[in-house]
């Protein structure tokens, strides 16, 4: 395909605003997928993606479209992950495009994450085609949303395409706009190969498959390749494009989007954002914007049954083949035994990994409350990253503790400003600014410690705004803070997996709530169990779980014997699922108790 007949674009949209449906329509209208093979959310192939209605892995598809000018164009749609946890991946996908279709729900308006992604796209100099979707809904307010797009994003209302991806209205206009408004790729055909990796996945037969945009030059099957970030050498055993499944080809030309089967064994060697060039006479110049991703959130993952440890290790190994942003290292907990401390991009990423481990590898897992990476300066002058409260050095050895702060933006209905403000200030957040998007909606910007949003911040935000608020965040800086380690003792035994790091001002409250919550979650046992929260040696809160007095089958006649035996077996199985710490059986939910502290408090009010 001639370079000036290629158009590379992605679609930016908030969850449920219709990105996948619009993609489905474009695939149908260009005849890329026959009506017979059409299924909803065609590009989202993971079960989790379909269930959650989100895109987790980036994907691409090539379409042939004959425009009204009579010419046939090659349109490459790069479908990007829709969640803030994956904003780096989004930025790389956008970098592989010259344009983006911005889809906004005509009944809901622009949301925080959309805005963040639009700014990313504008920053990469992308041509943006605004589309107001769902105009078929009775509550659609096209004019208001168009006005909002004009004001907030600065796109003229005249350029906005009204559409209904569901019915197909406007889809043709979107295709025409892609051809007319988005510029063709501008790379140098005769320069040495530079291909941008915007995603990769591991294939058991072909090794790591890199999803690439050829920026300069071209790549042929059999070419010897070099990864610029790590000098790994490999060969283009197979390459081709997406239909959306893989279709092999002889070469990929300048400006084209496709895949290269690299034969590499792990995706870590083929990182998103890296540049592929030729081994000989290649380019030495890395494409801009590459950065190795860093996990932000850490949690312990333990098998409920200790004997599943090797299975968990294998499962994590396999997942990291495909997920370069997941890190893990072995962790031993006095309470939970052998497991791993894993690092994630964010909470959604953590949830996805946990669900995939449980579903795809059939593991029963216990995940501890998430933590962040603290930088601890010790009295010997060293600075160490701490991912796990139990690794926190003793207070007398600690000179200073630094914690990560985030910049967050929240879009919320203006009548909820008060409650959002209250939530953020309770979580030590600092107000930066407030902008009205229209008379009813505001964009609030804050700085806030990451540790305060990794618990149930998003849930709280949603419940306080009746589900209307949206949230975006990005890393800001490390700041020093007066943090202490809060330990929990159950029956006088410290339970390491329940330790947490809190701000000194919150320690008393958190300790009290945690202890109360644990007393509700830990079932009564045959003896009295004191539950305490302590900072160092000092107990700051204490409650007692009274001894169980009654666990009896009151009557047991002929017809009851088998049934009651099953009941006993069920009780016993329930106990087996708990973790025994000292001689106390602790149910799994207790290890996540700390996550729900504020939720509890809110429920009680």
């Amino acid at each position, binding site marked *: 395909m001639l370079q000036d007949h290629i158009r590379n674009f992605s679609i930016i949209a908030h969850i449920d605003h219709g990105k996948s449906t619009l993609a489905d329509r474009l695939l149908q209208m260009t005849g890329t997928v026959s009506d017979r093979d059409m299924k909803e959310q065609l590009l989202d192939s993971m079960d989790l993606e379909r269930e959650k209605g989100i895109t987790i892995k980036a994907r691409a598809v090539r379409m042939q479209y004959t425009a009204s000018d009579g010419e046939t164009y090659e349109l490459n749609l790069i479908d990007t992950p829709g969640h803030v946890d994956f904003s780096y991946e989004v930025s790389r996908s956008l970098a592989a495009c010259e344009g983006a279709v911005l889809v906004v729900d005509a009944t809901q308006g622009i949301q925080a994450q959309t805005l963040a992604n639009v700014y990313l796209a504008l920053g990469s100099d992308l041509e943006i085609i605004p589309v107001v979707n769902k105009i078929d809904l009775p509550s659609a307010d096209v004019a208001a949303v168009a006005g909002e797009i004009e004001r907030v994003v600065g796109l003229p209302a005249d350029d906005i395409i009204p559409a209904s991806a569901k019915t197909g209205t406007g889809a043709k206009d979107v295709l025409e706009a892609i051809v007319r408004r988005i510029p063709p790729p501008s790379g140098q055909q005769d320069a040495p190969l530079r291909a941008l990796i915007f995603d990769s996945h591991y294939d058991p037969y072909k090794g790591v498959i890199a999803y690439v945009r050829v920026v300069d030059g071209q790549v042929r099957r059999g070419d010897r390749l070099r990864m610029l970030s790590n000098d790994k050498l490999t060969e283009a055993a197979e390459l081709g494009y997406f239909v959306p499944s893989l279709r092999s080809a002889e070469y990929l030309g300048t400006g084209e989007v496709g895949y290269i089967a690299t034969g590499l064994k792990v995706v870590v060697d083929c990182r998103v954002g890296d540049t592929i060039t030729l081994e000989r006479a290649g380019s030495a110049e890395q494409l801009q914007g590459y950065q190795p991703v860093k996990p932000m959130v850490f949690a312990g993952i333990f098998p409920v049954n200790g004997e599943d440890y090797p299975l968990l290790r294998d499962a994590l190994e396999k997942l990291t083949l495909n997920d370069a942003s997941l890190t893990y290292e072995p962790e031993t907990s006095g309470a939970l035994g052998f497991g791993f401390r894993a690092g994630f991009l964010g909470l959604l990423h953590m949830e996805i990994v946990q669900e995939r481990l449980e579903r795809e590898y059939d593991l029963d897992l216990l995940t501890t409350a998430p933590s962040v990476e603290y930088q601890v300066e010790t009295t010997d002058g060293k600075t160490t990253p701490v991912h796990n409260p139990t690794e926190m050095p003793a207070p007398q050895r600690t000179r200073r503790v630094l914690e990560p702060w985030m910049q967050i933006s929240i879009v919320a209905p203006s009548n909820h400003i008060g409650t959002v403000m209250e939530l953020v200030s309770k979580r030590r957040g600092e107000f930066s600014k407030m902008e009205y998007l229209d008379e009813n909606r505001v964009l609030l910007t804050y700085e806030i410690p990451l540790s305060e949003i990794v618990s149930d911040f998003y849930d709280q935000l949603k419940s306080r705004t009746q589900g209307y608020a949206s949230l975006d965040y990005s890393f800001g800086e490390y700041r020093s803070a007066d943090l202490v380690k809060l330990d929990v003792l159950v029956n006088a035994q410290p339970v390491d997996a329940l330790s947490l790091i809190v701000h000194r001002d919150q320690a008393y409250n958190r300790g009290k709530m945690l202890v109360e919550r644990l007393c509700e979650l830990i079932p*009564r046992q*045959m*003896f009295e169990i004191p539950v305490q929260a302590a900072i160092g040696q000092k107990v700051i809160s204490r409650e007692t779980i*009274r001894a*169980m*007095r*009654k*666990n*009896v*089958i*009151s*009557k*047991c*006649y*002929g*017809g009851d*014997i*088998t049934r009651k*035996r099953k009941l*006993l*077996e069920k*009780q*016993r199985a329930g*106990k087996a699922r708990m973790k025994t710490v000292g001689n106390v059986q602790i149910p799994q939910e207790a290890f996540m108790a700390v996550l729900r502290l504020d939720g509890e408090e809110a429920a009680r009010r």
Partner: protein
Amino acid sequence: MQTPASPTPKKTDRADAGLYVHIPFCRTKCVYCDFNCYAGENHLIPQYVAALCRELEMYGQRSWRATTLYLGGGTPSLLSAGQVAAIVDTARTALDFNPGEVTLEANPGSVNEDYFRELLDVGVNRVSVGIQSFRDADLKRLARHHSVADAVDAFASARAAGVPDISLDLIYGLPEQSLAAWRDNLVQAMALAPEHVSLYGLVVEEGTPLARQVARGKVSPPDDDLMADMYELAHEVFSASGLVRYEVSNWALTGHEARHNLVYWNNEPYIGAGAGAHGYLGGCRYSNELLPARYIRRVEQSELSVVEREPISHNLERAETVILGLRLDAGVSAAAFHARYGEDLVDCYGAVISEAELFGLLEWRDKRLYLTERGRLLSNEVFQRLLPE
């Protein structure tokens, strides 16, 4: 392994078993009830009794001998004395049942003195009255259709008719029931001077209307501590009236213990006859077809109506013997255990026993193993550990 379909004892002479006969008919269904019983099918009773007799004959052909007879339900007192007579007589002729203990569960509201006289004439010598509570509000909440007056009446009628053994059923842990209300209940029960009392701690069984009410938050579930207090209070009150506890939830004047129920607790064989009845014969627990109409059809075709059977392994039987035996105040005798299984009780369960002793749940006295007072209320904790993996 013998199956209950052919539970023929090895020897030519008959083997002993308790006989439980289920009468699955009720006028209405109670709110906590998860038994096999049906309201509005009383027209089936004559056919049903005929089928029961046929079934007893089939067990007779398999050379069982009935040692006790218990008519439970449902509401056995919906049967006429003539129908009860047919069952008792068939047990005698077919199952070599020598006039022993014959119990019938009677529900207040469906009985009077004449009825009890007729029952005595046909061989019933023990009546269990399902009073449940001496407070009308409780009865109403449980959707029992009798009143306290009906219950007291039923008891008095049985007494006046001369029934020698009367047992009362009481439920504790009812929604909204206070300890004071429970005490009042106990006092009223003792005023009737029953020979025997059975306690039933309310359990919210899945699938019952009560469970739905609890799930919807309309009724608060029974509180464990309060129920423990209620149990202890009951024991205190019964003991003061001369009733002796012989099983975790049963009290009797000495010599008036329920012999039929002792068959269960001694883990001995019993025949389960009738729709939904459970039996334990030839090392196998089994249960019958639940629906009365289907039960009748199957028995009319001269087959036992067994639908489920579970062979009990040696290890499980041993464990059940200990679990059921510990429910008895007589405890488990190490010597009797050895005589029955040729194994030493401590060799089999030493670890569990010592752990339970440590927690104060079990104790040894004169080479017998007993639940402690605390252990009675926490017996599940012991029993869970006794069950084989």
